């Protein structure tokens, strides 16, 4: 770049910067925070964002804040925080680091701010490119009459023989039936058990636990349970003796199982 051209550039930039600054003061609300403002200001430098002069940008921003103050414009806190930070950055950039000074150098801080600006700009460009793409419902379209998958739910009803017999029993005994309750004492006789089991055993073609033959209402009270258990056990022995059933027990204290003996 020749000196003259550079000079020309500077003048232009100056004018633009002033114009921009004026605009900023009038409408600071139009900016999305200090970073957005800085990015807008950086454009006045008309150079690649990677070669931007952060020092110049900092001065520009500080001048803007000064002007705003002069015009007694209320600036949001984050604009002032940024101003303070840029003032600090400016001093770091201008003054040689003091010996023994720790922390990042002015150049490092400036590089980071440049990175932030470049990244924000890159995201804005990406957003623009994204929105410029062909879009669904604007440039390309979905099926006008989607045929939704119809869910055919077929229900298969089922019932067991037990359901059936219970259902029938329920109807047939609706009037006279009284839930089976022992009115007598807590003794279940072997004769009663034998009677019960003779009727039941016809349905027991497979090994069935003896305990399942226990009548309802005899399982909860320990005394009644013991009596009924003993009665049924004795009854099953009787039936085995008569050759009606087979008995087995896999282990000591294991469940006792019986089944109808095939003729």
């Amino acid at each position, binding site marked *: 770049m020749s000196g003259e051209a550079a000079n020309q550039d500077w003048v232009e930039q100056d004018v633009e910067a002033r114009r921009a600054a004026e605009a900023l003061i009038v409408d600071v609300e139009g900016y999305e925070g200090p970073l957005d403002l800085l990015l807008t200001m950086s454009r006045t430098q008309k150079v690649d964002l990677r070669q931007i002069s952060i020092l110049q940008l900092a001065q520009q921003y500080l001048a803007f804040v000064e002007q705003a103050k002069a015009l007694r414009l209320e600036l949001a806190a984050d604009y002032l925080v940024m101003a303070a930070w840029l003032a600090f950055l400016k001093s770091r950039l201008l003054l040689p680091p003091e010996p023994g000074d720790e922390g990042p150098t002015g150049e490092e801080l400036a590089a980071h701010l440049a990175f932030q600006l470049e990244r924000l700009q890159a995201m804005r460009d990406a957003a623009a490119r994204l929105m410029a793409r062909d879009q669904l419902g604007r440039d390309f*379209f*979905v*099926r*006008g*009459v989607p*045929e*939704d*998958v*119809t*869910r*055919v*739910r*077929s*229900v*298969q*009803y*089922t*019932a*067991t*023989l*037990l*359901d*059936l*017999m*219970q*259902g*029938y*029993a*329920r*109807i*047939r*005994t*609706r009037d006279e039936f009284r*839930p*089976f309750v022992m009115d007598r004492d807590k003794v279940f006789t072997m004769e009663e058990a034998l*009677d*019960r089991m003779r*009727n*039941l055993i*016809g*349905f*027991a*073609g*497979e090994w*069935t*636990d003896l*305990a*399942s*033959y*226990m*009548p*309802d209402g005899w*399982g909860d009270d*320990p*005394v009644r*349970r*013991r009596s009924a*258990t003993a009665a049924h056990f004795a009854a099953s022995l009787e039936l085995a003796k008569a050759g009606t059933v087979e008995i087995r027990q896999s282990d000591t*204290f294991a*469940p006792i199982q019986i089944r109808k003996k095939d003729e």
Partner: protein
Amino acid sequence: MAEEQEESLFEAPPLAEQERMVEAVLFASAEPVRVADLNARMPHGADAEAALTLLQKRYDGRGVRVVKVGDAWAIRTAPDLGFLMKKETVETRKLSRAAIETLAIIAYHQPVTRAEIEEIRGVSVSRGTIDQLLEMDWIRLGRRRMTPGRPVTFVVTQGFLDHFGLENARDLPGLKELRAAGLLENRPRPGQLSETETGDEDEDQSDMFEDS
């Protein structure tokens, strides 16, 4: 194809291009599109009718077809692939109490008329219940009763016997046996049926034999 394209080079909007247009419009349109509407939407000089003919031929035998609906055109799924648009799920559900009771009455009393079922149940039997059992092929119509009105009777089917593992409906246990089996209780008693599984019962049982 090459010929077609060559020819189309001389047409105002090439016919192949018109075919693409018709294809896109039919695809995206929520309703069948009339030829006149197609022509109105396509560039001047286009012949939708000709493009449609080509398009229809192109989709011949494909998974979707170009069909005429009244005086309009649309793209529709090939009928033989309709099954793909359905998701079938089979749900097993217990038969309702009303259905079970009705079924039981028919099984125990067959052949039985509807009036008799109602008399036994003490409540009216809904048409739906009977229909359901008929549909399941568990009951069927028997001979008409030779009484005034000649009412139809219901009997159980072979399907019913198969399902419940019965040789004959007469094998069903009688009332006395049901009572003896403890089936007159409200709660099902395990063990009386070879059909019921014994997994649960084992627990019950050990319970029963434990400390008393």
